[in-house]
C-alpha cells in the first residue's frame, strides 16, 4: 500500500463506514427489537431511551461518509449514488420515518399512535440494515460499469441487477449481524427482564448470523481471481471474533460480547474494503472500466486540505461522542420510566421535577 493522499482518504472513508456500521448497526438492531424484547409500554420506552441521546450522532457517521466520498472521490460518489438510485432512495425514506418516529413516538399516550410509530421504527431499521449489505456486496462483486459518451464511468445495470444471490446473502448478513449487535447492546444497556430477553435473542440470531456470514465470506474468497491470503486471514478473524462474542453472550459477559460484536463488524467491513483496494467500484464488464482511487479522486490539493480538517476534527469528535456514551453509561430499566403510558403532550402532563 503506497501512502498517497488517495490511499489516506480510502482508509478514512473505510473508517467512517466502520464507525457507521458499528454505531448505527446497534441502532438498527434495537429498532427491530423494540417490540420483541418488551412486554409493556415501560419496557418499550426504556429500550428507546437507550438510543435517545445517541442515535442522531451515530447517523452523522453516514452523512460524513457521504460528504467525504463527495469531496475525495467525486466520481465514486456520482457513479455509486446515481447507479444505486432506488435502493438508496429506500434507505433515505426509511431513515426519515425512523428518525421522526424516535422523536415523536412517545409524545402521545394513545396506543394506536405509538403502535404506528413502532412499525415505522421497525421497518425504518430493517430496510437499511438489509439494503446496506446488498449495496456493499454488489460493490465488492462488481457491477456493470461502462464508459459513457460523456467520457465518465457510469453504472449501466438496472435495479434488478443488484438483486443477485451473493448480494442478497450480503443483505441477510448485515440484517442478522445488526440484529444480534443490537440485542447485545440492549443486554448491556438495560436492566431487568429486557436484559434477559435480549440475551436470549442474541443467542439465536447470533447463530443465524454466523451461518450467513461464514457462507458470505467463503463466497467472497472464492470470487476473487485467486485466493488472497490476507483476505482469507481477515475472514477467519471475523469468524473468530464473532464466536468469541457469542461465547461472551452465553456467559453473560455483556461488555465483552459487545466489544467482540463491534470488533466483528469492524474487521468485516475492513475485509470488504481491503478486497476492493485500490479499486473503489470494480466493473463487471472489464477492469478497464474499474473506478479506482486514482481515476475517481479529487486533486491532491483538495485531498490535502481535507486531510488537515480530518486530522484536527476527527479526534475531537471521537472525544465528545465518547463522552456522551460515558454520561449515559448507566443501564436503563423499565422502573425508571415515569408514567410510561402517558405522552408528554397529553392533557394534564405537568410533570414536576425534583
Amino acid at each position, binding site marked *: 500500500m503506497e501512502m498517497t493522499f488517495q490511499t489516506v482518504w480510502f482508509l478514512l472513508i473505510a473508517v467512517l463506514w466502520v464507525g457507521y456500521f458499528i454505531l448505527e448497526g446497534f441502532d438498527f438492531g434495537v429498532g427491530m427489537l423494540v417490540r420483541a424484547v418488551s412486554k409493556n409500554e415501560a419496557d418499550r420506552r426504556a429500550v428507546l431511551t437507550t438510543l*435517545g441521546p445517541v442515535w*442522531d450522532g451515530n*447517523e452523522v457517521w453516514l452523512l460524513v461518509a457521504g460528504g467525504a466520498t463527495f469531496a475525495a472521490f467525486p466520481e465514486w460518489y*456520482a457513479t455509486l449514488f446515481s447507479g444505486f438510485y432506488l435502493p438508496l432512495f429506500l434507505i433515505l425514506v426509511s431513515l*426519515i*420515518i425512523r428518525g421522526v418516529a424516535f422523536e415523536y413516538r412517545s*409524545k402521545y399516550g394513545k396506543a394506536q399512535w405509538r403502535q404506528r410509530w413502532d412499525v415505522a421504527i421497525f421497518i425504518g431499521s430493517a430496510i437499511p440494515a438489509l439494503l446496506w449489505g446488498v449495496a456493499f456486496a454488489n460493490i465488492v462483486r462488481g457491477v456493470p460499469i461502462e464508459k459513457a459518451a460523456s467520457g465518465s464511468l*457510469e453504472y449501466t445495470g438496472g435495479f434488478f441487477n443488484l438483486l443477485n444471490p451473493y448480494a442478497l446473502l450480503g443483505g441477510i448478513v448485515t440484517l442478522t449481524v445488526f440484529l444480534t449487535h443490537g440485542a447485545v447492546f440492549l443486554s448491556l444497556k438495560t436492566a431487568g427482564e429486557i436484559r434477559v430477553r435480549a440475551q436470549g435473542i442474541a443467542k439465536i440470531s447470533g447463530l443465524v448470523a454466523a451461518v450467513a456470514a461464514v457462507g458470505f465470506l467463503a463466497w467472497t474468497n472464492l470470487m476473487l481471481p485467486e485466493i488472497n491470503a490476507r483476505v482469507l486471514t481477515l475472514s477467519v478473524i471475523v469468524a473468530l471474533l464473532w464466536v468469541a462474542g457469542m461465547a461472551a453472550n452465553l456467559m453473560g459477559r455483556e461488555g465483552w460480547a459487545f466489544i467482540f460484536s463491534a470488533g466483528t463488524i469492524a474487521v468485516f467491513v475492513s475485509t470488504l474494503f481491503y478486497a476492493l483496494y485500490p479499486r473503489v467500484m470494480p466493473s463487471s464488464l472489464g477492469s478497464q472500466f474499474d473506478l479506482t482511487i486514482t481515476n475517481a479522486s479529487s486533486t491532491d490539493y483538495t485531498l490535502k486540505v481535507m486531510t488537515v480538517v480530518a486530522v484536527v476534527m476527527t479526534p475531537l469528535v471521537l472525544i465528545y461522542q465518547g463522552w456522551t456514551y460515558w454520561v449515559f453509561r448507566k443501564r436503563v430499566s423499565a422502573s425508571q420510566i415515569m408514567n410510561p403510558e402517558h405522552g408528554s403532550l397529553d392533557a394534564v402532563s405537568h410533570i414536576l421535577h425534583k
Partner: protein
Amino acid sequence: MGFMVAGLQTAWYRTGKLQHLRATKFFGKLFLINFAIGVVTGIVQEFQFGMNWSSYSRFVGDIFGAPLAMEGLLAFFMESTFLGLWIFGWDRLSKKLHLATIWLAAAGTLLSAYFILAANSWMQHPVAYTYNAAKNRAELTNIIEVLTQKTALATFFHTIPSAAFTAGAFVAGISAFLIIKGKDLQMSRGTFKLGAITMVVSFILVGVSGDLTARVMTDQQPMKMASAEALYDSTANAPFSLFTLGTLDGSKSVFQIGLPSVLSFMSTGNFNGVVEGVNDLEAAYDKQYGAGNYTPNIPLAYWSFRLMMGFGFIGIFFALLGLWQMRKGATPKGKWFYPAMVSLPFIPLAANSFGWIFTETARQPWAVFGLIKTADGVSAVVSAGAVLFTMIVFTLLYGVLAFIEVGLTLRVIKMGPAEELDYADPQLGGSEDRQLVMAY
C-alpha cells in the same frame, strides 16, 4: 431558535427565576419538534447531489464536496451530539455543563449554515478554480478564497439575521397568543419582548446585509439584478420598481411604477449609476458563452424578490405594532391583534422561501454561474420516471410529516408552559432506580 433557547436557559442559570426555566422548556420543546424534521430531511441533502445530479457532482466535486464534508465533520457531529446531551442531560449533567451543551449545539447550527452557504455561494459566483479540460471538471486552487469570498460572507450575514428574524417571530407570535389567552403572563410577556426585539435588531441587519448582497450581486450576477427589477434596457438613474405589468412571456414590461434612481443607488451605491438591462446582458452572454437563452424567468424573479422584501416589511410592522400595544404592561386591544400575532411565525418563513426561490431561479440556466448549466448537471443514468417517482414520494412524505409537525406544535402551544420546580444540582450519572427526567 437554538440560540434563543440557549439565551433563555442562560437567563435561568444566571437569575434562577423560574419563568426563564419554563420558557426554556416550553420553547425547547417546540424547537425540538422542528429540529427533528430538519435532521431527517437534511439526510437527503447529503446524497441527492450524487443521485440526481451526478454530472454536476463529477464537475464540481473537487471544490463543492469540500465544504459539504467540512459541514458534516465540524457541524453535524457537534449539533447532534450536544443536542442529544441537552435533551437527556437535565439530570445527568451539572447545570453549568448542561447549559454549555445547548450553546454548543447552537454553535453547530451556525457552522452548518456557514459551510452550506459557502458551497451555495460558489455556485452563484465560482472563485479559486481552474478548468481541467482532460477531466472536464473544475479544480480547487484555494480553499480559503472559497470560504471567504464576498458572496459567501454577504450571504452568510444576510441569511443568519433572517434566521434570527424567523426565530424572533416564532417566539413573539406564540408568546402573544399566550398573552391573549392569559397564560403564564409572567413568562409570555418577557418572551414576547425578547422575540419582538430580536426581530427589530435582525431586521436592521437583514437590511444592511441585503443592501450589500444586492451590490455584490449586481457586480457578479448582473443578470440576476436586472431580472429582479424586470429592467430590460441598461439605464442610468434606474428606478426601483414597485409594481410592474409585463407581457406574459416576460420579454418586456408594459407598465411600471418606480422610485426614480433608487435601483441605481441600491446596485451601485450611486444614484446616477448605470444598471445593465436584461437585453444587453443577453446579447453579451450570447457572445461569451455561445448562442442560447441566458435569461431566467423574469416574472418569477421580479415577484419573488418583491415578496421576499414585502413579507419582511409586514413582519417588522406587526412586531412594532405588538411592542407598541403592549408597552408598559398594557393589555393588547383591537381586532387586528389576534390574527396578526397568529400569522407572525409564518411571515418570515414566506420571506425566506421567496428569497431562496429568487436567488436560485434567477441564476438559471446555470447550476454554477458561467461554468455548468443545470440541464447538463443531471444524472445520465437515472430516468425521468425515476426522478418523478422519488419526487412524488418525497413530496407526499414531507407533506405528511409537516402535517404531524404542525399538529404537535399546536398541541404544545395549546398546553402552554408547564410548571417547573427548580432542579437540585443533580449527581452525575444518575442511579438505576432513580426515575429519569427525560425518556423516549
